[in-house]
């Protein structure tokens, strides 16, 4: 089973992807999609050797909901700055220490921070476990860091570690 | 009525997206540095993708979907390559 399906999560994801692409959940599509998903996920072991273990999958939904809300908020915030006649963001670099070490979790965090307007993940230092972030409009640096840690890092720690 | 609303709002949206594209074009030309241009190209891909989605609504057609999807999925390959070239001087090491 391990050999046949080295990446079950990936395989499931690919099957869902296939069905959404086909816009159909007919038996034929599920069958063909399963074959493709299993074959492709097996082939993917070449470049994705480590299996991803999600300990609390339902928390992922929470994470996405939180991220979604933040995205909306920051979109509006950034737009208000941009539509200001003379946009003067108080931008700055923030270096933040992370307790998170799982690279998959880090990637998700990077993704969320970068995808959210107003913050951008610049570089991660593995030795010091710090990440350099550029923030569009910093009001209070410590508060910002605290928010990120509270809203995302703890969730990610729960999910992956 | 609802058709008119949709038509006009789609036209407005498309014009806005078009203007957004021009903005990215400005940055692509003005630079000043390569990263600015690459950033603009990446943004351009996203805007083009959205323009296609609006075109799909306008034409009531789904044939543009895959094009938009591939722009979203693979548009970044070019910009990643550019970014990597910028950083490393070569795309594949």
């Amino acid at each position, binding site marked *: 089973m391990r050999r046949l399906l080295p990446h079950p999560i990936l395989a499931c994801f690919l099957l869902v992807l296939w069905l*959404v*692409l086909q816009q159909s959940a007919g038996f034929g599509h599920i069958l063909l999609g399963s074959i493709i998903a299993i074959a492709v996920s097996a082939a993917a072991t070449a470049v994705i050797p480590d299996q991803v273990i999600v300990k609390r999958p339902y928390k992922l939904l929470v994470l996405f909901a939180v991220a979604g809300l933040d*995205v909306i908020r920051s*979109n509006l915030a*950034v*737009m208000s700055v*941009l*539509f200001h006649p003379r*946009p003067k*963001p108080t*931008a700055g670099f923030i270096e933040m220490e992370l307790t998170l070490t799982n690279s998959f979790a880090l990637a998700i965090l*990077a*993704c969320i921070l*970068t*995808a*959210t*307007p107003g913050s*951008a*993940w*610049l*570089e991660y*230092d593995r030795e*010091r476990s710090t990440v*350099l972030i*550029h923030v*569009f409009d910093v009001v209070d640096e410590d508060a910002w860091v605290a928010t990120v840690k509270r809203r995302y890092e703890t969730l990610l720690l729960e999910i992956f570690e | 009525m*609802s*058709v008119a609303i*949709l038509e*006009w*709002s*789609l036209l*407005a949206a498309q014009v*806005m997206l078009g203007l*957004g594209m021009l*903005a*990215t074009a400005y*940055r692509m030309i003005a630079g000043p540095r390569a990263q*600015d241009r690459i*950033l603009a190209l*990446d*943004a351009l891909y*996203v*805007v083009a*993708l*959205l323009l296609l*989605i*609006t075109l799909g*609504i306008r*034409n009531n057609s*789904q044939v543009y979907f895959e094009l*938009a*999807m591939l722009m*979203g*999925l693979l548009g*970044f390959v070019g910009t*990643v390559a550019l*970014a*990597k070239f910028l*950083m490393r001087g070569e795309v594949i090491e």
Partner: protein
Amino acid sequence: MIADLPLWLSILVSAFVVLGALLTMAGCFGLVRLKSFYLRIHGPTMGTSMGGGLILLASAIYFTVTRERLVVHELIIFLFVSLTTPVTLMLLARATLFRDRVEGQIDVPRRPEKLAPKD
């Protein structure tokens, strides 16, 4: 040709589309108006996040109604864009960061233990 929807739906779709386009355009204008690269990096994400999301959502609603079945494959585009945009931005930002450091730009934070110029 564009399809005839119930009025409230067409208003909803129109609003999503226009708002999404507006956000996206705002992000692009950010590319023009903002003064430094690190600031400009935030502009395009408006298009990839909420701007794009709204337009895709509009599309999903529109086609769900016109095709009379659930159309959610716009989700895939949103997923792909969300996964890929950070990659480009991170690489670009990193590259810029290093260049600025090497060129001695003072307002860029440096990492002493790794990139300190050695005599």
